């Protein structure tokens, strides 16, 4: 699988696009927005993980996903994993 470079900007774009696809409005999205307030649940996050994996080759497991609370957490996790 060819993967993109996981710069913070790239990851943020991919994560935001994936979230908009699932439900939240784009203007609700910012680093400190919590998944709880965005009404994004564990299945939604599993879907975002799938998109992230396709783009950056980074696999996020159930344990990883359970530890992230905000959009910024998700972006940082992917950027760090991709290093």
């Amino acid at each position, binding site marked *: 699988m060819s993967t993109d470079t996981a710069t913070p900007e790239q990851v943020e774009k991919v994560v935001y696009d994936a979230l908009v696809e699932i439900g939240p409005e784009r203007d609700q999205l910012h680093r400190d927005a919590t998944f709880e307030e965005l009404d994004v649940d564990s*299945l939604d996050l*599993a*879907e975002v993980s*799938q998109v992230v994996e396709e783009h950056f080759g980074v696999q996020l497991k159930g344990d990883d996903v359970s530890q992230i609370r905000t959009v910024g957490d998700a972006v940082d996790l992917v950027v760090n994993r991709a290093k």
Partner: protein
Amino acid sequence: MSSRPEGCALVTGASRGIGAAIATTLAVDDGWTVGVNFRSDEAGAQRVVEGIEEAGGRAAPVAGDVAQRGSDEKVLAELEERFGPVLVLVNNAGMRADGLTVQLDDDAWDQVLATNLSAAFRLTRRAVRTMVRARFGRIVNVASVVGPKANAGQANYAASKAGLIGFTRTVAVEVARRGVTVNAVAPGLIETDLTEGLGPELLDAVPARRAGTPEDVAACVRFLISDHASYVTGTTLTVDGGLSA
């Protein structure tokens, strides 16, 4: 016709018996392009495909021993490449290796669990990702009345089928909000190679006084996959002529 998205179906263990009947009805009666999975009986799978094609349906044999780790990726990727996303998965592949528990060896236990339960888990894990994103999917697991009900000499088989029913329920609630349904059918005594040698005296216990046919089971699977069953999920449809009533 329904508003279902473009995609195809996979029926495991479909070279004969119940799997062949399911593959045939989905392809011929409902227009699904069907992957007819087989482990070793390539000629049987080919016959099923030819029968479907002669009746105007579309199908292809798909080789793969689903009990082996990694086969899920191989089988599903092959189908996706040829026919698009797999939106219907029927986990039908099954085996028996009977014996009283005190005499059951590790291989008999492991092989039955690997084929009847772990294969369904791995295929479901892989296939449901696509279904969730498509906002549509149908998974039907072929369980058995043995599992919820005891049958001496089949502890491994019963454990695998009871496990499959628990697995069905749990996955169903995990993905229900994405338009993906997950159900099981629980056949009773069905005339197939797998039930050969079980003895005619068993028929006396069946209120319908006959063994079921693979087509009896396939009709139930067809219903669970149809739009008519879009609100049915996490359930087990028993097909046993009243045996477990």
